[in-house]
C-alpha cells in the first residue's frame, strides 16, 4: 500500500486558450491534483493538449486564471521534450538553476555534485553541454530540475528519442529520485508501456478536455469512453446489445453468433460498447481459460523481441493480443492459422451507450 497522499498542486476549473479561429484550441481541466511522491501520467492522442496542460501547470500559459491553480511553496519545474543546453559546461548548466538564490558556494557545489550523481553524469561535469548526446542531455535536464529541489516536477516526453537501454536506465534513476525526494510528478508521454512502469495515476486528455483520471489500474481497466479506451491501449473494442443473462454474466451480442460475456450489470436489450485489453484476450488452447467467444484467423505477428503482438481477424474485426516472444504459441503460430479466442467475463469492460 502507498503512504497517505498529500496534495501538492491542485488545479480546479483550469481553462486555457490558444490561437483563434480554426486553430483555436481550448484546454479544459475541471480538476486535477498532484500528490507528493506520486506519478500522474497524462495520456492522449496527438494534439489533445498534453504539453499545453504541462505548461499551464508550470504557470507558463498566460490565459490561465490565477485562482484556478493552487501551487505549493516549493518550485514547480518543467523539463521540456527537447531540453535546452546553455553554452558552457554541464556543471555550469546545473549551477544556472541556483543563480541568485543566496546559496553559499560550498553548499551549491555539494548540491550540484549530488544532482550529477543522481543521474549518473558526474563524469560529464566539465564537458561542453552542447556536445552531449540526446540521452545525456535529458539526464542533464533532469539533474538541473532536481537541483531545484522541486515540489512538483513536470516531464514532457522524458523518454523520447532514447534507445531501449537508455529508457530502462533513466526509468530506474527517475523512479529512485522520485521516491527519495517525494516530489509530485506529472508526465506526458505517448509511450504507453513506458508510462505504465512509472504511473501511479493516469489522466486522459481528449481534444483539450480532461476526460478521465484515476488510479492507474482503474483507468486501464475501466476507461470511461471508447476514445479513452484507445488512448490507454484497450485495443479490442466492439459495440453490441445485451442478450441473455446467466449466472451473473451478461452476454453481449456483437453480431449474429458472436457474443462476449461480461460481469457488468446490464439489462437485456441495453446497447453497450465492449472493451478488452490485449493482455486479457486469450488464445484458447483447450486449458479452459475463460469463456470461449469464437474462432479467429491470425492476420499478422509483430515481435519487438519481448512481446509479440498478434492481430486476429474475427469476422470483419481485427482484435489484438500479446504473447511472450520466443515461447509457446508465439513460436508456433503463423499468419493464416485458425485460433479460438476466450475471455474471462470479469476482465471484459462494458458500458451502456447513452443515447444523446
Amino acid at each position: 500500500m502507498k503512504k497517505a497522499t498529500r496534495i501538492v498542486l491542485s488545479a480546479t476549473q483550469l481553462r486555457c486558450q490558444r490561437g483563434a479561429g480554426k486553430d483555436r484550441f481550448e484546454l479544459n481541466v475541471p480538476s486535477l491534483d498532484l500528490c507528493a511522491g506520486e506519478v500522474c501520467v497524462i495520456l492522449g492522442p496527438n494534439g489533445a493538449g498534453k504539453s499545453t496542460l504541462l505548461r499551464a501547470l508550470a504557470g507558463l500559459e498566460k490565459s490561465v486564471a490565477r485562482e484556478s491553480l493552487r501551487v505549493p511553496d516549493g518550485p514547480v519545474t518543467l523539463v521540456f521534450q527537447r531540453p535546452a543546453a546553455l553554452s558552457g559546461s554541464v556543471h555550469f548548466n546545473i549551477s544556472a538553476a541556483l543563480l541568485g538564490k543566496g546559496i553559499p558556494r560550498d553548499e551549491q557545489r555539494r548540491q550540484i555534485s549530488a544532482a550529477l550523481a543522481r543521474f549518473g553524469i558526474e563524469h560529464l561535469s566539465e564537458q561542453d553541454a552542447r556536445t552531449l548526446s540526446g540521452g545525456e542531455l535529458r539526464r542533464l535536464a533532469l539533474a538541473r530540475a532536481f537541483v531545484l529541489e522541486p515540489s512538483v516536477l513536470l516531464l514532457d516526453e522524458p523518454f523520447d528519442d532514447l534507445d531501449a537501454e537508455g529508457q530502462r536506465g533513466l526509468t530506474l534513476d527517475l523512479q529512485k529520485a522520485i521516491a527519495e525526494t517525494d516530489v509530485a510528478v506529472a508526465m506526458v508521454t505517448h509511450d504507453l508501456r513506458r508510462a505504465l512502469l512509472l504511473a501511479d495515476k493516469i489522466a486522459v486528455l481528449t481534444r483539450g478536455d480532461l476526460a478521465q483520471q484515476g488510479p492507474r489500474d482503474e483507468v486501464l481497466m475501466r476507461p470511461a469512453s471508447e476514445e479513452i479506451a484507445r488512448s490507454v491501449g484497450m485495443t479490442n473494442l466492439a459495440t453490441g446489445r445485451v442478450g441473455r443473462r446467466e449466472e451473473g454474466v451478461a452476454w453481449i451480442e456483437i453480431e449474429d453468433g458472436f457474443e462476449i460475456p461480461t460481469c457488468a450489470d446490464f439489462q437485456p436489450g441495453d446497447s453497450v460498447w465492449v472493451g478488452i485489453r490485449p493482455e486479457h484476450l486469450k488464445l484458447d488452447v483447450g486449458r479452459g481459460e475463460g469463456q470461449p467467444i469464437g474462432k479467429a484467423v491470425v492476420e499478422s505477428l509483430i515481435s519487438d523481441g519481448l512481446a509479440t503482438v498478434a492481430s486476429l481477424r474475427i469476422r470483419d474485426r481485427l482484435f489484438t493480443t500479446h504473447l511472450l516472444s520466443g515461447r509457446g504459441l508465439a513460436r508456433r503460430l503463423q499468419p493464416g492459422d485458425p485460433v479460438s479466442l476466450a475471455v474471462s467475463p470479469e476482465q471484459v469492460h462494458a458500458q451502456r451507450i447513452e443515447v444523446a
Partner: protein
Amino acid sequence: MEGLDLAMISEITLRTLWVCGAALVISSGIGVPIGIALGARRFAGRTLFVSSVNAGMGAPPVVVGLVCVMLFWRSGLLGGFGLAYTQTGMILAQTLIALPLVIGITLAAVGSLDEEWELQVRTLGIGRMWRLWLLIREVRMGILAAVLAALGGILSEVGAVMIVGGNLEGETRVLTTAIMMYTRMGNFEMALGLATVLVGITFLLAGLLTAIQQSGRTR
C-alpha cells in the same frame, strides 16, 4: 606636399578611431538592448520596427549623411547646436549608420535561440535579471559580431563623414576622407599610407569576426 607624413597619418588614424569608437559605444549602448528586446519580446508594431531596422542596415551612408546635414544646417531642425562640420556631428551620423547594424545582428542572434528557450529558463525559477544575464551570455558571440560588423561599416564609410564633417584638416579629417583628398591631389604616397592603415584595421576586424563565427559553429 609630397612624401609620407607619418605624424599626419597617425593623427588622422587616432581621430578616426575616436570618432568611430565614440559612435560605436553610443550605437552599441542603444542598439544591443533594443536588439535583445526585439528578439525576445512580441509586441504590436514589432514587425514594422524589424523591417525598418532591416531597411536601415542597407541604407546608403551618403544618404544618412545628407539627412544629417540637412538637420544640422543652420536653418535645420538641430541647427541651433552648430553640429555641421564638427566631430560631434560626425559621431552622430556614424551612430545612425551603425545603429541598424547593431540592432539587426543582435536581433538575429537572439532570434536564433530556440523558441522555447526563454520558457525553459523561466522554469528554473530564477530572477528576471539573472534570466536576462543568461540570455546575454548565451548570445554574447552574436552581440560581439554585431558590434564588430558595425565598426567595420562605419570605419570604411566615406559618404556621410565627408558630407557632415567636410574633411577639415585637424578637425574632421578621417582616414577615408583623407584618402579621397590625397588621391585627388595626386599624392599617392600619402593616400596609400592611409589606405594601408585602414585596410589593416578592417582586416583585423574581419579576422576577429571570422574567429567568432567559427567558434560559434563548433560551440
